[in-house]
């Protein structure tokens, strides 16, 4: 099955890419409707709310009358998004486009607004659960699970504790993110590397905020002032929650998109993709830190919850009679959809012009990532020393990692002391990385066919234009009237030439 190359930027994009039938099924769940509503751009939210109780379609002209003069680009973005998510249904009638809210969505959102949305489960009272993990313990657990999982991804031998990931989970990731050749340890593919880099970007944000004293990780409050996130004036704080959630979004998006087999696999387990999304979104409305009984889950959900626990989304615990799960902050922030935050992050890599690399980090994950393309020489408590060599780069290229990715990674993670310099990574290093990559690809081969002995120049020129139109012309010699055409259009070419002969 070919890998799907669309990279959804977040969970909502991925939801938007589901087929219409699935989306309609999803909209039967009130929580999903609310989650989708929250994820919309502000103008789109306004439109949805205004049309919530209107049953007849509204012409797009009247919609535009609601706008101020400078709002037309935002209007377009909002409308596109609504159509993409199939919240708006477009009805073309006699040259006038009209919009109507998706009826399932409309009904359920109305219900949700009136009834307030009651979760299918109540938290278990304290008397049964005794001592629940504190907020810090939960966060530490989630973080640990997540790092463990990422380490597992890169190098199966190195994770500190043996993970109990179900084989199907590992298969999913291995298909999309790792590649395993016979008898070798699994290695990362290009998309896997991209994924890792993305995660790293986001994880790197965490220590910055804690260290700067800007954020108290335990109470999730910014010490100074407030920042408004999203359009609704949530009393939100740019905080650990949202950051973790950001990278979780990326993770889930890639989980579904990169591994187009996931759908198949998920169905192998008998779990429908839409159900999984529905469950994840429902989870996001639970209170983190509260225990919910496992008995309230459907069979499908019980299958899923084990894997979610391995990823740090929930924590499973057993009491004397009951077992329950506790959602962590990773899970509860799924419905918050933010645009990519552009905050500066703390880099840690210094690259010198002699190709030596110093990475001020103690994270195993960082070490593994650097090992992918550089030769790590020493590892000190707070420093990783390495060198970028031809052999290490060839290794990386063989795994499908491109020079561009490596250079971007180095530039984006440049240590603050060098980050201000232009360029943050020495040019001789970046140039050499690119040169080494092209060195591997000095010869390019394409299956092709050779044509010569054309009866006349006109026929030759017609044929050459034909080939060019189909993007199939590889080489031609006008003087000797010879040309080489891609094998893919060979059949078309033959027919064209036969046509010419008549």
């Amino acid at each position: 099955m070919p890998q799907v190359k669309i990279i959804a930027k977040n969970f909502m994009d991925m939801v938007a890419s589901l087929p219409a039938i699935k989306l309609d099924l999803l909209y039967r769940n009130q929580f999903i409707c609310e989650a989708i509503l929250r994820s919309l751009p502000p103008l789109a939210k306004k439109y949805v709310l205004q049309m919530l109780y209107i049953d007849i379609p509204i012409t797009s002209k009247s919609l535009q009358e609601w706008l101020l003069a400078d709002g037309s680009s935002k209007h377009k973005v909002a409308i596109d998004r609504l159509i993409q998510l199939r919240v708006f249904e477009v009805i073309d009638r006699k040259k006038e486009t009209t919009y109507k809210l998706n009826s399932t969505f409309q009904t359920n959102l109305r219900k949700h607004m009136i009834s307030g949305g009651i979760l299918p489960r109540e938290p278990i009272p304290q008397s049964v659960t005794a001592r629940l993990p504190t907020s810090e313990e939960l966060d530490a657990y989630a973080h640990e699970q997540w790092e463990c999982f990422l380490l597992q991804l890169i190098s199966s031998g190195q994770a500190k504790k043996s993970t109990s990931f179900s084989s199907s989970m590992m298969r999913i990731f291995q298909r999309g993110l790792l590649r395993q050749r016979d008898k070798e340890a699994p290695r990362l593919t290009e998309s896997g590397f991209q994924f890792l880099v993305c995660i790293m970007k986001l994880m790197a944000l965490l220590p910055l905020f804690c260290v700067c004293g800007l954020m108290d990780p335990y109470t999730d409050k910014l010490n100074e002032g407030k920042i408004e996130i999203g359009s609704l004036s949530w009393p939100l704080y740019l905080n650990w929650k949202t950051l973790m959630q950001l990278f979780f979004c990326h993770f889930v998006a890639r989980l579904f998109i990169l591994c187009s087999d996931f759908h198949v696999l998920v169905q192998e387990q008998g779990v429908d993709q839409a159900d999984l999304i529905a469950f994840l979104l429902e989870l996001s409305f639970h209170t983190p830190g509260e225990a919910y009984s496992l008995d309230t889950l459907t069979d499908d959900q019980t299958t899923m919850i084990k894997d979610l626990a391995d990823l740090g989304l929930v924590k499973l615990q057993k009491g004397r009679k009951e077992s329950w799960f506790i959602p962590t902050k990773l899970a509860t922030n799924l419905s918050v959809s933010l645009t990519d935050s552009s905050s500066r992050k703390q880099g840690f890599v210094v690259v010198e012009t002699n190709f030596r690399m110093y990475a001020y980090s103690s994270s195993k994950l960082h070490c593994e990532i650097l090992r992918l393309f550089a030769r790590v020489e020493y590892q000190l408590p707070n420093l990783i020393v390495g060198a970028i060599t031809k052999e290490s780069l060839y290794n990386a290229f063989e795994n499908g990692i491109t020079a561009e990715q490596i250079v971007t990674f180095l530039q984006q993670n440049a240590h603050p002391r060098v980050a201000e310099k232009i360029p943050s990574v020495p040019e001789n290093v970046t140039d050499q990385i690119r040169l080494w990559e092209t060195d591997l690809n000095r010869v390019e081969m394409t299956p092709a066919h050779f044509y010569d002995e054309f009866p006349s120049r006109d026929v030759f020129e017609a044929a050459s234009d034909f080939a060019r139109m189909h993007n199939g012309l590889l080489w031609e010699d006008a003087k000797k009237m010879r040309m080489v055409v891609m094998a893919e259009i060979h059949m078309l070419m033959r027919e064209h030439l036969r046509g010419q002969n008549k």
Partner: protein
Amino acid sequence: MPEKCGLIDIPMAQFIVNLNASLPAAHKFIIHVLDSTHFFVQPDVAGMIRSAISEFRDQNSYEKPT
């Protein structure tokens, strides 16, 4: 059977011509020399050409003994 057209830089092209010349007549793979950077070759030699190139590249690199 589609034959392959190679796009190469000039030094590499020379290398390939030499490689072709060094092989016995039965194994010669260049069908047409199109110009200084393009060749039309037999279909199944791609792997062989690439391994010859990588051997050539390895001969040109020095790795410090660790």
